[in-house]
């Protein structure tokens, strides 16, 4: 996605490599790079996660924070009577790539925000939005999903979905007590109270059903998953497929389209997405469990990125 110009010889080398199933870094078309995941990095947020895709401590780096807020329901603002909402926002930091300086990242921000919204905002995400309603037609939870892209080395979309998934899984909301109190006329009115106890927190409902995304880049006549920066520079189209734990396809978004996917390739991509998603779910579970145990033990761990021996 970063504007990298390659010479015709480099492009040809990458394309022919992909077509013969051997990529420039030795991976085959469906191999993915290592993922590092941490959760609970932002203490002020209700949930947060940082995900890096890449080897030896360099790679695409995304930080996601979830902030929950109670909103008063007003008719006509488009919020359903008895459900909460999720608002996504993605920002590409200018420190990630030079072309993100100024307004350079605007289009990409919109595209990635759109992607997160498509995957996580709605029944396809598995999140139980009705549980996020506090009192119908009165108050509901708003979950602000704010993602910051800190480094770009190809494959932002996958890192973004991984980080968002981990952040939502680690989100804890304060408990809300709803009680009915008679008003002056003796009519029962529902009122709520947010319990201000840092230990009395609840998880989001249905987060374990959230999908995971696999991004395919079409290069030459074939496609690869988890494209590197150089591969993205020669890709003719990109497609992100979100797959739920039940192996249902929840969302598809394409981008960077110069030539698109052929229909034959398209059906192959959808099938491959499901097989890869199965592996990705177990990989995610492993990384998330590791991140959770780390979050408990090493909260004050200083963050250094200079050696690959230190994860972040």
């Amino acid at each position, binding site marked *: 996605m970063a504007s990298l*110009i*390659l*010479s*015709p*010889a*480099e492009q*040809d*080398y*990458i394309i*022919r*490599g992909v077509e*013969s199933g*051997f*990529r*420039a*870094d*030795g*991976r*085959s078309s469906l*191999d993915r*790079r*290592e993922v590092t995941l941490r959760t609970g990095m932002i203490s002020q947020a209700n949930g947060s996660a940082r995900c890096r895709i890449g*080897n*030896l*401590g*360099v790679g695409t780096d995304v930080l996601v924070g979830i902030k929950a807020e109670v909103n008063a329901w007003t008719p006509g603002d488009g919020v359903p009577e008895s459900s909460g909402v999720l608002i996504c926002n993605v920002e590409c930091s200018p420190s990630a790539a030079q072309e993100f300086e100024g307004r350079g990242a605007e289009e990409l921000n919109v595209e990635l925000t759109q992607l997160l919204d498509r995957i996580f905002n709605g029944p396809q995400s598995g999140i139980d939005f009705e549980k996020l309603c506090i009192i119908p037609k009165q108050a509901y939870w708003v979950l602000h999903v704010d993602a910051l892209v800190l480094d770009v080395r190809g494959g932002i979309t996958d890192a973004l979905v991984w980080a968002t998934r981990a952040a939502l899984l680690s989100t804890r909301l304060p408990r809300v007590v709803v009680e009915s109190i008679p008003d002056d006329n003796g009519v029962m009115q529902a009122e709520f109270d947010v319990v201000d106890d840092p230990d009395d927190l609840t998880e989001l409902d249905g987060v374990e059903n959230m999908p995971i995304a696999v991004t395919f880049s079409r290069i030459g006549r074939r496609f690869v998953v988890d494209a590197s920066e*150089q591969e993205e520079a020669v890709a003719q189209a990109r497609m992100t497929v979100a797959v739920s734990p039940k192996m249902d396809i929840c969302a598809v978004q394409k981008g960077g389209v110069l030539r698109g996917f052929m229909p034959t390739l398209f059906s192959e991509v959808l099938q491959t997405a499901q097989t890869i998603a199965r592996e990705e779910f177990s990989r995610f579970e492993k990384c998330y469990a590791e991140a959770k145990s780390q979050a408990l033990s090493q909260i004050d761990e200083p963050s250094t990125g200079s*050696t*690959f*021996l230190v994860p972040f």
Partner: protein
Amino acid sequence: MQIDDIPSSTARDLASRIVTPGTAITSDPAYMRGHGTFGENDTIYSSVAGAVERINKLVSVRPLKQRYSGEIGDIVVGRITEVGSKRWRVDVNSRQDGVLLLSSINLPGGIQRRKLESDELQMRTFFAEGDLVFAEVQSFFADGGLSLHTRSIQYGKLRNGQLVTVFPQLVPRSRSHFHTLPCGVDIVVGVNGYIWVSKHVPAAKVEANSELIYSDRNEHISDSERETIARIANCIHLLNRLYVKITDTSIIFAYEASLPHAVKDLLTKEVATDLAHTVKARLLQQS
């Protein structure tokens, strides 16, 4: 003042210390400020993160990370960023782009030939935006910009391989920057930190056909050749992350140590850590 006049305790304090920006290095008035430092209230502070170096009275800090600063005669690998009138702008990983003048390249068909107006019109057929060139630093401009030249048969456009970027300070200047490794891979180790890893093409082949200097077409590269190129590239990535000097010897060490592992696993945490220890031990043993 002689070096002996400086109290030995401060002299020892200064030697090989690692500092961060804003660290006070010394307040001894005997010292002079060098590169990477600034003075305030008679104290010398570091302006970069790096190692303190002292040459007699001159205190300077050598940064751990820095951009490439050229010297005449350096062999570099650069990427064309702009085609201008009679010149190309070349990204050489430096503070500013280098310049390759039309008069500093060899034109196809006859080594010595006058540059014609028609050559100026077809500059893109020689080098276009994005192309990688293998060049030598010819001279400096008044503003410190580099002027490059490709007036030798071994210089010119790079093809048949891939680029690896490393920290420029890890590449020492040496007699030769073009190596053919025993595993049948050519590497061009640019002093600016751009390293080109490619399939071995005999020099005689290019000499016989001067059109090849500006060719964009790759030769046929078999899967096993691709694998060797990828292995070398991954080894260079690893050396870069280990902050080890990148020379043909260290690359060969890493390559030999990597042979038991699959290419795609070289950069995963377990294998990389394992390899890192082997390579460092071998390099220590050698020195």
